[in-house]
């Protein structure tokens, strides 16, 4: 049963925004114009501090999305209710337009591992994630956006593709998808799959946000190459290609430029967002018969 999407004048438009990180808070707070929307990791503000005050100031002028990294939706042990309470409090404070987290896990046996660890795509894992997503949605009173992660390995006992897993999750929970096209490309390269073939395998009508980011190419000790989702560069040409193909068919979707390592000047992020915005504008050109 799909949950209602909160209607709000601050609802994030189908436009290009940026991931807001600490080095840019003061600059954005001083001059918020020119940003369609921003996204932050709520965990970075849950301890309090000056950055939370700045985020609240920015929120007065710019729509904000909360993109979690700590719900650990794939944990067998369930969602940490204390963390869910922190997230719910943050939602009350920031009033975000979108709330998202990842199809991954990071907590086991009371230990938090700061990474988005992979799940085997099995019926057992689907039951776990669906249970946890429903628990989160019940607590926050809105649909959660679930993001496809970047992956560096696959499990022998997976019985579903990632797209099949996400489709079933949408059907069972009413959640929406945050489609990270850089992750799609990185995972496909690392696992020997074809990203173009998988691009439309997810339920496109459930995609409520797109992520774009840069990545790095690394050679492992055995000579094999992997793409590392380090969010440390401009968006790769292959990812832009996936993006334009997706939005031309599925329509414009709120799109975010992420940059988390070697964070450049704010203008660099704005230029990447402006490029995404041009593509979004192109995707609005109606598909009419030319002749």
């Amino acid at each position: 049963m799909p949950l209602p999407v909160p209607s709000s004048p601050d609802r994030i438009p189908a436009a290009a925004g940026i991931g807001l990180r600490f080095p840019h808070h003061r600059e954005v707070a001083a001059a918020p114009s020119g940003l369609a929307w921003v996204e932050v990791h709520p965990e970075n503000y849950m301890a309090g501090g000056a950055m939370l005050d700045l985020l609240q100031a920015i929120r007065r002028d710019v729509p904000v999305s909360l993109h979690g990294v700590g719900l650990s939706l794939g944990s067998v042990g369930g969602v940490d209710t204390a963390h869910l309470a922190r997230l719910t409090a943050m939602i009350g404070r920031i009033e975000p337009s979108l709330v998202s987290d990842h199809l991954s896990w990071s907590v086991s046996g009371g230990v938090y591992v700061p990474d988005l660890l992979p799940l085997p795509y099995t019926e057992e894992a689907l039951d776990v994630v669906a249970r946890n997503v429903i628990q989160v949605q019940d607590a926050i009173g809105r649909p959660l956006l679930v993001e496809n992660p970047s992956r560096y390995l696959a499990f022998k006992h997976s019985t579903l593709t990632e797209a099949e897993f996400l489709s079933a999750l949408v059907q069972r929970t009413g959640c929406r998808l945050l489609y990270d096209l850089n992750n799609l490309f990185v995972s496909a390269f690392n696992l020997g799959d074809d990203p173009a073939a998988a691009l439309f395998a997810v339920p496109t009508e459930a995609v409520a946000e797109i992520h774009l980011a840069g990545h790095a190419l690394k050679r492992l000790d055995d000579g094999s190459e992997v793409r590392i989702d380090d969010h440390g560069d401009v968006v790769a040409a292959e990812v832009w290609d996936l993006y334009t193909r997706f939005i031309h068919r599925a329509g414009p979707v709120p799109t975010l430029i992420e940059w988390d390592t070697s964070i450049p000047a704010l203008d660099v992020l704005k230029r990447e967002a402006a490029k995404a915005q041009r593509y979004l504008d192109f995707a609005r050109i109606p598909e009419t018969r030319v002749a």
Partner: protein
Amino acid sequence: MPDLATLQADFVRAILGPDRSAAGASVLGDAAAAGLRLGIYRTTALSGLSEALRLSYPITERVVGAAFFEQSALAFARQAPPEVPVLALYGAGFPDFLRSLPALAALPYVADLALLDWAVDQAGLAPSGHRTADRSHVLATERGIATITLAPSLRLLRLETSVRDIWLSLRAGDEDSLADLDWRQGPQWLAVHHQGDDVEVTALTPACWRLSDALLLGGDLETAISTVAADPGEAAAVAGEFMNTPFLRIDFPRS
């Protein structure tokens, strides 16, 4: 194949410890390739924890050097990984971990610098100003009943070594003055609080420190003064020092 609970426990062991075989057995590909792929997650996770500690302990890193700090941080992360996904709160036990290292046994000031780093870091997470009502106290003065409010960011530290000036010099980048500083000057009683973007580290007398500590624990001001002072003269001196500390706001009634 393992169930999900077993797989997740195996995965955490592979990231925090040396044994990747159990987790690797579930991964597609041969054992060597699986180990390398698991290593990507291991590197990301451990570097994230190391970076979190580096951000909280900048002066400590400056003193021990980047390489020693990195090794210590990784060892601590494996021994005491976080329990919650709020990394700004991770690392309270790092000073004690440093104190336990044989390589630092003769350098007790390193762990004390780390304690000061942590107090400053955590004070920065508190609201600025003096907004917390539950730290207000009243005191009868010559001008009437004063309301005294402690800064919500206030942290108190009792250190065995004299590291305050060393910490301040390093933080200011004034390393020339280090030649005049010696950590062997005895214990220090310190107060740390934030005011806007600045942090202040104030040296207190032991009596004033105990008074401040009693108030932080919720004690009554006049009782606390009488407890920490042996006689009326000392009480007056302690009260005078306390009233001049920078982490107070004193409000007098409007006349």
